[in-house]
């Protein structure tokens, strides 16, 4: 379909010709949609394979820890989920920056597609962290710097989702959430630093939950495989979700 028969918003933004910038061509929903449709199943397949490999390494190859026993194996889900939660927020903020600067709606929609998955990974990180902490340190929750930062990251995700939900007009919602995500991403280093400082201030008897066992190579391999699995899963889910969003907001027809 020749570019000039499409409306301006399908040409990838006001006045930016997709023919001039090759990569920007995929900001056009019409070009992006078939790409997403074909890529998503591959992402899910990769996620399943990587997860199987990662869990196999994590449960059958990595040795039992001398101090923590078997329960340390929770890190094979806790750490990848935590990394993905932070990574997805950064990617979301990146898309929001693109949406504000280039005024491409697809960028904002990708951010909206990533947000629920990012929030879910944050919750999984907190949940697995709690279940790791209970047998090792005796409490369900530890106010250590990393877990507290994860909790605040969850609140940032929830704020993004709440604002998106509250604004009816889709364009305004996209741009308002973009500003909020950027405010959040600028704030994240400050939040992390302040929580670290607060934690060392009130150290007392609290021990860091993330004092993981010294990393054998197999443990690292397992975590890496699981991280890649989570990444592939998030990509697949985001691609499927953004195709739904494109239709819900009327940019593409079902």
């Amino acid at each position, binding site marked *: 379909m020749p570019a000039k028969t499409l409306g301006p918003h399908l040409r990838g933004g006001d006045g930016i010709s997709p023919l001039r910038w090759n990569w920007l061509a995929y900001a056009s929903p019409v070009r992006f949609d078939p790409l997403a449709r074909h890529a998503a199943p591959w992402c899910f397949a990769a996620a399943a394979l990587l997860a199987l490999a990662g869990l196999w390494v994590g449960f059958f190859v990595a040795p*039992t820890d*001398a*101090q923590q*026993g*078997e*329960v340390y*194996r*929770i890190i094979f*889900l*806790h750490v990848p*989920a935590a990394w993905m939660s932070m990574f997805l927020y950064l990617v979301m903020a990146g898309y929001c920056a693109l949406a504000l600067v280039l005024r491409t709606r697809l960028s904002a929609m990708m951010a909206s597609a990533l947000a*629920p*998955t990012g929030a*879910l990974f944050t*919750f*999984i990180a907190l*949940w*697995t962290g709690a*279940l*790791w902490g*209970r*047998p*090792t340190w*005796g409490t369900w929750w530890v106010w250590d710097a990393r877990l507290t930062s994860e909790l605040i990251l969850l609140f940032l995700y929830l704020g993004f989702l709440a604002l998106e939900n509250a604004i009816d007009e889709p364009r305004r919602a996209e741009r308002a959430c973009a500003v909020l995500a950027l405010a959040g991403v600028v704030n994240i280093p400050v939040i992390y630093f302040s929580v670290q400082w607060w934690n060392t201030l009130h150290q007392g008897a609290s021990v860091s939950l993330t004092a993981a066992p010294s990393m054998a190579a197999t443990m690292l391999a397992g975590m890496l495989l699981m991280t890649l699995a989570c990444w592939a*899963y998030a990509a697949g*889910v985001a691609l*499927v*979700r953004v*195709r*739904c969003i494109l*239709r*819900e907001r009327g940019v593409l*027809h*079902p």
Partner: protein
Amino acid sequence: MRNDRRDTVNWSHHTPYIAGAFGVAFLLLGAELALLAARVRRARQRR
């Protein structure tokens, strides 16, 4: 309260924690996929 750190041999009481962690996590991921599938179906029905 049982001091888990002294129990260096029998780790079997850790199984519920591992099961709970992975189980709930996969349940939630499955729920996300199910909700996404429902959303895809709703989007297709807009035709």
